[in-house]
């Protein structure tokens, strides 16, 4: 059994809604409401969900770019949520992030060299000459050339910029990379290139990924395990093949039904959900999915289902599977 790199327990993020001239807190948007999971060393955990389900918020809370309202994040034996701000800055050396928009995540006034050098300067790694050499080396590693170093971000295409973003995340030799929709802003042909690059890097550098995306196909391609989020909760989590072949949660089933299959003769049982995602400021009682669930039972309206294992490595939060749970 490989060891755990990251453990998340009861993570919550409530954004206050202020109203009136005195800015009294009238309600909260429950962006992330009590999720727990862990990530093993060397694996890729995919997190999927619709827009606004809290997957990006989760990613940002893991490295405390957003302060969690509640919950515990333990990384490599160190409890991140109890660190002071300056200790957290140092800890970020081991956790890096790749951002969604390659057009916005690079400072337009800095050269690529300066952008890539920054993490080394911040964490005081190597002397200036070594730093420069490392910048050139990583440019080559992500498939660019060292002569690109003196250029500015606007002189690159989206795919190239995302490679730069990946190179920046790699500069400090991190253990964990949180990729927040790293390919959703790219063309499909470029997506594949960037995904393959990320997989190659994972093998070479023994990286662990948390891969946040809304594209089920992309997630299936890259992940070892997948977590499905709905309205701030984790609905289901399982090994990739297990989840795609045998989805348990009705929401996961519905999501997978929506993925087109390139075979006109293929017929499947369709799980169709109706309506829209409810507001996270005022989520439904009980199971958050009950307003849209085709298999709704009475208990779903009143009791929150527990997120727990029903089979080995396959956890789900749904009352349908209450009996099959090992007691």
């Amino acid at each position, binding site marked *: 059994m490989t060891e755990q790199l990251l453990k998340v327990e009861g993570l919550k993020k409530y954004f206050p809604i202020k109203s009136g001239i005195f800015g009294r807190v009238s309600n909260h948007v429950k962006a992330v409401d009590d999720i727990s999971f862990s990530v093993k060393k060397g694996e890729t955990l995919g997190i999927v969900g619709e827009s606004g389900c809290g997957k990006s918020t989760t990613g940002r809370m893991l*490295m405390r*770019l957003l302060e969690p309202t509640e919950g515990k994040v333990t990384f490599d034996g160190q409890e991140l949520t109890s660190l002071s701000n300056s200790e957290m*800055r*140092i*800890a*970020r*050396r081991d956790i*890096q*992030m790749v*951002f*969604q*928009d390659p057009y*916005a*995540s*690079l*400072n*337009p*006034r800095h*050269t690529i*060299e300066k952008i890539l050098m*920054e*993490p080394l300067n*911040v*964490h005081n790694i190597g002397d200036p000459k070594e730093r*420069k*050499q490392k910048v*050139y*080396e990583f440019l*080559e*590693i992500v498939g660019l050339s*060292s*002569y690109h*170093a*003196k*250029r*500015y971000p*606007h*002189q690159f295409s989206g795919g190239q910029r995302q490679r730069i*973003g990946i190179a*920046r995340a790699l500069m*400090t030799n991190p253990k964990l990379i949180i990729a927040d929709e790293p390919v959703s802003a790219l063309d499909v042909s470029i997506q594949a290139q960037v995904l393959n690059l990320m997989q190659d890097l994972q093998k*070479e*550098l023994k990286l662990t990924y948390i891969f946040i995306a809304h594209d089920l196909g992309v997630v299936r391609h890259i992940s070892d395990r997948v977590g499905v989020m709905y309205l701030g909760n984790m609905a289901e989590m399982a090994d990739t093949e297990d989840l795609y072949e045998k989805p348990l949660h009705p929401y996961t089933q519905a999501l997978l039904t929506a993925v087109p299959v390139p075979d006109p003769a293929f017929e499947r049982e369709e799980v169709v959900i109706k309506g829209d995602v409810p507001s996270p400021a005022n989520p439904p009682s009980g199971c958050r999915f009950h307003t849209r669930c085709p298999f709704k039972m009475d208990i779903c309206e009143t009791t929150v289902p527990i997120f727990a294992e029903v089979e080995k490595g396959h956890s789900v939060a749904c009352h349908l599977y209450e009996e099959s749970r090992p007691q």
Partner: protein
Amino acid sequence: MADTTVNSKDVELQKVAGPWKEAWRGFRKSKIAVVGMGIVIFFILLAIFGPLFTPQGINEQNMAERFQPPSSTYWMGTDDFGRDILSRVVYGARISLWVGFLAVVASVIVGSILGILAGYYGRWVDTVISRFFDIMLAFPSILLAIAVVSVLGPSLRNALIAIAIINVPNFGRLIRSKVLSIKEDEYIMSAKAIGMKDSRILFSHILPNSMAPVIVQGTLAIATAIIEAAALGFLGLGASAPTPEWGKMLADSRSYLTNAPWTMIFPGAAIMLTVLGFNLMGDGLRDALDPRMKS
């Protein structure tokens, strides 16, 4: 890991146009802007080297030569004390540009600090600073300048301070709004993700990216500051008697307007030309630096 040794010399040879260089390229395209810059450069050179070559002394009175019209000896004529107007206008360039430049630099510095604090830290810091700006902007600027000078006492230095003060809220607001928009950009988030300190993010990311509008506004503000300095001089609240300040010269010429119009025309033309130069240059800079204006 790929084994790559790179000759860093090859990399150094790559010269690529940065954002500033591109802006300069855009600026050069506009003929009017280049003319404006020509005028500004002309006046700057005049201010620096002009006084070395002036034919007459600036304050030498020659009562026998009062009110001489422009001639080959006195290119711009003489004033009521028989002083050479050309020499005084040339020396005046030094005063006006100096006052304009210094006042604007001072207000940019103070305004930037306040604007960055307000924009980056938000909350009560923003509230206090923004309300302070609002209060200052509630007064007509020249009235506020007059009030400041009357508290400090009339002198060129105090006029400069007054002009600097009245310009602070303009720059402060400009920077505040720019910082507000930049701090939401993803590269600020990524700088945080790297583990960068707040202060470093401010100086290496936010400040350089909010400078473009400040440069534009600064150039235009120098023009306004020169006019304001001249206005204060005209009202007797700026430079005192023998100093050849353009506004003061205009004020002195009032009584002789019909008999010796050259005492007014030349200082007036100097003010107009300098201000025009700065405005043309500022417009060109705005077009070159503001991506939204690009065609």
